[in-house]
Structures are given as C-alpha cells and as structure tokens.
C-alpha cells in the first residue's frame, strides 16, 4: 500500500515534469532542425544548425550579448557596493529617520520598476540619459532586495568579531569589507543570482530606454526579431534566436539548480 502510494506520487510528478518540459523540448528541437512548413512537437526534419547560423548572422547577437553582459556585470558590481554599505548601516545603527528609510526601501519592493516607466522615462530624458547603458542601469543601482538580504545576514554575524577588529585598530571601511562581507558569502550568492537573472531577462525598461544597436539588450533584440514581419516558417528562426538568448542562464541553472532555487526563496522572502 505504502509502495503503491509512493510509486504513484513519483509517476505523477514525472508525468508533470514531462509536461512542463514540452515547450523547451519543442523549442530546442525546432531550433536545431531544418525549418519545415508543418510544426510538430518532435522534429521531423534532419538536424541542422542553419537556423542558428541564420539568426546569428542576421541579428547582431554578438553585440547584444556584450551589451547584456556589460549591463548585468556593472549593475551587480555597483549594487554590491551600494547595498553592502546600506545593509551595514541598517544592521548596525539606530538613528533618527530610520523608519523613514525603511519606508522608502519598502516602496521599492511594493512598486516594481516597470510600473513607473512613464515618470522615469521623463526623468531620464531630462538627465539626457536616453539610449545609454547608464540610463538602463541607474534605477537599479540601489536595490531594496539586496539591502534587506545583506542586512539580515550582517545581523547574524557575532559582534565580537567586529569588536575584535575594532580593537585591532581597523577602520569602519576595513571592518565592513574585511570582516562583514566575507562572512555573508551566502547572502551575496543569492543576491548575485537574483540580480543577474533579473537583468538578463529584463525587457520593458531596456526597450524604452535604448534606441541604438550599441545599447540594445538581448531581450529587446529578440523581441524585435520575433515581431518583425519576416515571413516564412518564422518559428524555426525565432526558436533559434530564443535559444541563443536563454542558453547561458538556463545552463547555469541546470548546473546550480539548488543554489538558484534557494536564492529565489531567500530573495523573495526578503522582498
């Protein structure tokens, strides 16, 4: 009886897993086989890299890759600094105005950036930052999620450690970077996973801010391609293009799946 129950649970979960995989299987299969007029779940045409080659040569994906990677990396580095400092301040001090600061940080959690596209676009054009990478990154350089995550983590670090450093004559700066940051590795990992996947996947804001190929991201490039009126078995090419842009993150996820899922949980809860 117990066994039957166990097996049926396993069977059901595997069945569902296979269902969940349908779009991915179709996507990969279609991207890697010769285009055909008839769409089918499993490929009916021979293996071919034609679609990948076509989209790679038609769309400046190399450039888009570089842009996206630049954005993701620079955003994370800056967030790393700003959030560490703010997280430390909130973890270590009591001060007048603290409640107000918390409220402001909360606002960012409740109001997703995409909702404020109109006023933020107006601000950005007044700053002359339309169609710049800085413009894409700027609203994200202070991250509420990261601040809460790091604050939480800093709070669990024994104060004795910091006091010892203090007695040894360490400055505030040194204490933060040499004592606190190394102790919060796990929190940084989570924050890195969330930050990178958010900015890799972000679409609406880069769509609005960028005009030129020099700044266009992978997602915006894909959307232009998917919406272009290029005719004829378009799905094979769109699948190839999609595969190109999702591959790195998806591979990273399949390798580090546990880390990814834990990160999403801890960041979500801190949100």
């Amino acid at each position, binding site marked *: 009886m117990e066994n039957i129950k166990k097996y049926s649970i396993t069977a059901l979960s595997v069945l569902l897993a296979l269902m969940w995989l349908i779009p991915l299987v179709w996507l990969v299969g279609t991207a890697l086989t010769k285009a055909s007029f008839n769409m089918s779940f499993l490929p009916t045409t021979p293996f071919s890299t034609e679609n990948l080659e076509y989209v790679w040569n038609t769309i400046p994906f190399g450039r888009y890759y570089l842009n996206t990677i630049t954005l993701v990396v620079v955003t994370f580095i800056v967030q790393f600094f700003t959030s560490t400092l703010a997280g430390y301040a909130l973890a270590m001090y009591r001060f007048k105005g603290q409640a107000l600061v918390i409220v402001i940080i909360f606002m960012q959690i409740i109001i997703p950036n995409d909702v404020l596209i109109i006023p933020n676009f107006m601000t950005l054009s007044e700053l002359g930052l339309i169609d710049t990478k*800085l413009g894409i990154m700027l609203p994200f350089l202070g991250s509420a999620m990261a601040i809460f995550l790091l604050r939480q983590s800093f709070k669990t670090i024994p104060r004795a450690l910091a006091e010892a450093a203090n007695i040894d004559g360490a400055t505030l700066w040194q204490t933060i970077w040499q004592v606190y940051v190394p102790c919060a590795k796990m929190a940084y990992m989570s924050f890195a996973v969330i930050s990178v996947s958010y900015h890799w996947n972000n679409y609406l804001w880069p769509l609005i801010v960028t005009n030129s190929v020099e700044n266009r991201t992978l997602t915006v490039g894909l959307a232009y391609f998917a919406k*272009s*009126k290029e005719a*004829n078995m378009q799905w094979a090419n769109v699948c190839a293009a999609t595969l190109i842009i999702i591959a790195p993150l998806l591979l990273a996820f399949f390798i580090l799946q546990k880390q990814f899922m834990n990160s999403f949980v801890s960041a979500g809860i801190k949100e």
Partner: protein
Amino acid sequence: MMKRILSLAISLLLLLSMATALAGDAPLELSMYFPVNVGGSAAALIEKMTEDFNAENPDIKVSPVYTGNYDDTVTKIQTAIQGGNPPDLFVSLATQRFTMASTKMAMPLDGLIAADPEGAAFIDDFIDGFMLDSYVEGAIYSIPFQRSTMVMYYNKDAFKEVGLDPEAPPKNWTELVEYAQKLTNENRWGVGLALNSGSAQWAFTGFSLQNCTNEVGLMSADGKEVYFNTPENVEALQLWLDLQNKYKVMAPGIVQWTDLPTQFLAGQVAMIYHTTGNLTNIRNNADFDFGVAFLPAGRQYGAPTGGGNFYITSGISEERQQAAWKYIRFMCSTERAAQWSIDTGYVATRESAYETDLLKNYYADFPAALVAYEQLPYAQPELTTYSAAEMWRILNDNIQAAVTGEMTAEEALQTAQEQGEELLYDFQ
C-alpha cells in the same frame, strides 16, 4: 575620517564614470532609423546600400539602425526625439507625415529641394500615386522609399485542381466568393486576409476604395476627417464577415500578417491578399505555380499603397540636413530604386526606374512583378490622418470587434467613426 569618506566617494565616482565610459558616446556621424516589415533580407540590403553611400562619400558616415517593424519604429523615433537624442533621418510610414509635421518631429523638405539644382526634376520623377503621400498642407515632408501596394497571390495548382482557369484570377467580389467556395476544402481555405492590428486597416483601405462611389475611401486628403461609417464601407466590412461566417471560405478570427504567407506557401490557403514586398520571398519558397493578380474589384478596382518614406528630423544642423538629403537622393536614385524593387518586391518609386534595362529585363523574365505597377493607377494611400497611430488603433480595434463577433459591421464602423471624430476634434 574624512579620508575614508573621500575614498568612498571617489570609488563611487570611479564606478559611475566607468559605467558612463562603458555606455559609450553618441556617434558623430548621421544615424538613421529604419523598419523592415516584409520577408527577405531587406535589412541587410539597406545596410549594403548605405555602405556603398559611405564609400562614395568619405566625409559622411550614415549608420542605419534597424528598429523593428513599422509600429516599433514609430515608437522608437518618438521616444528618441522626446529623449533629446533623435536620429538625423529615418524611414517611417508615409501615414505618419501629419503627425510628424504637427509635432514638429520632421522638417519640411522644400528648402532642400529648391536649393538642389536637380531637386525639382528628382521630385517630378516619382510616381504620382506615391508622391500623394508626401504632402502636408502643401509642403513636402517625406520622400517615397520602400513603397508597397497590396496584390493578390493565388495558387495556380489549386485552381487547376478544382477546375478553375489558372490564368483567370477573380476579377470582382462575386467571382472572389465563387472561386473561394470552389477552392475551399477540408485542408484549405479559399481566401486569406491578415486581420491583426496594423494589417487590417491596410487591407480595409483597399476594400473601401473598391466599393466607394466618389473615389473617397476612408478619409479626407488633408487628414482631418474620416468616413468610416458610410454604407459602402459597412458593405465592405460585411463582405469580410460573410467570407468567414456565411460562406465559410476564410479562416475565422484573426490571422496574423506574418502567418498568412506561410499558410499560402504550405498550401493551406489558395488566395491571399498581401504586400508586393513579399513577392521575392514567395517566389523563392513556393513549390507550386503561383500567380499575382489585381485585387478583385467591387464597384471598381482599388488598392491601398503603403510602406515607408524618408523623413529628416527637424532641428538638426544645416550641414547634417544637407548630408541627409544627399543620402536620400542616393538611396532613391533611379538605378537603386530599380535594384531595390527587384531584390525585395517593393514597387520602384521612380518613373525612370521603369526605363532601366535592369527592370525591363526583370519584368520580361518575371511578368508577375509587373502587376503591382499596373495596378498603381487604381491605388490610393492607406488610412492617413493626424494622430495616425491612434487612428489606426481605433479602426483596427473595431474591425476586430466585428470579426470576433462582438459587434455587427455597422456598429463597429459607427463606433470607429465616433472615436475617430473625437480624436480629430483638436485638428478641425
């Protein structure tokens, strides 16, 4: 203490400046935004032609920027101009010219034309039907470039299969229905129209022109009035609904513009209304014999013209204006217009292009390509008003409401009329 703060500030500044450096500077050369709406490799062609121009003019460097389809490009041009970082010139829909003029996004070109010794002759050589689409209140705001018109593609093999004469496509609406009924079977629709937003209004312009009684289809020439709810237009929309619901010879609901040629090539629909811009694409991919025909007539023949024109952004320096004009002259020169037409299927915009050996040989070899040109005398601009993007949306939304059974043809066009009049109220 100060030192620490200072070092903190400096490291932040460094980071920011690093980010700025990575963001790159705006190029000093001319930038041009352009859309591509049809199959084939039109984007690559524009880039190739631009390279030729740059090679010929070492002092100018035009960088073409592909900005998606027509709708996306309109949005991008608007946001770029609002963002204070506009392209120097751009290709946008001819229908955008009233908006471009009223919002002062584009400049009138009459000064540049007058200053150019060959300017007047250059303009005169454009086909009249296309130049119609260039004026706002008497001033020229745009130059015809990637212009298209709608034609009917039909599957000759399917015609033969059901006993129709493959050399006699339907000439009028009655024949259209009759042939479509014969061609429809379990696996194939008789006729296909793309009814998604951005396509329905184009096809509808054609049907409206075919059915109207006074050569006025959907709007007045000054772009300040619309006539959506005339009995003739209601009749035209009713024909669409009948094709779907009464005769059941057209796929119900909304078929996407992009899907339609694929369905045609796959043999799933026997006759489609589509752009000449897709000719090369269909020619290269059809594994059956196909024909190109005039759009079947209602009271008379009629077809929409569409596609993109060159605009020059207002407010750029005179030097840049001159360079942009030189580029436009180059891109629209007779030879290039001819080659462009052959490579893409777009209609050559210059009368003189049809005198070139290039086009003559092409037509001799591929007579189907000539159909679009021969149909031009019956063609008129598609829906063009002030606030064009919104007006398109209004017509498209209401056509969709009728197609999906939310409203009758009459109700839909009545609603469109009311919404359209409200939109144009400010311009009366």
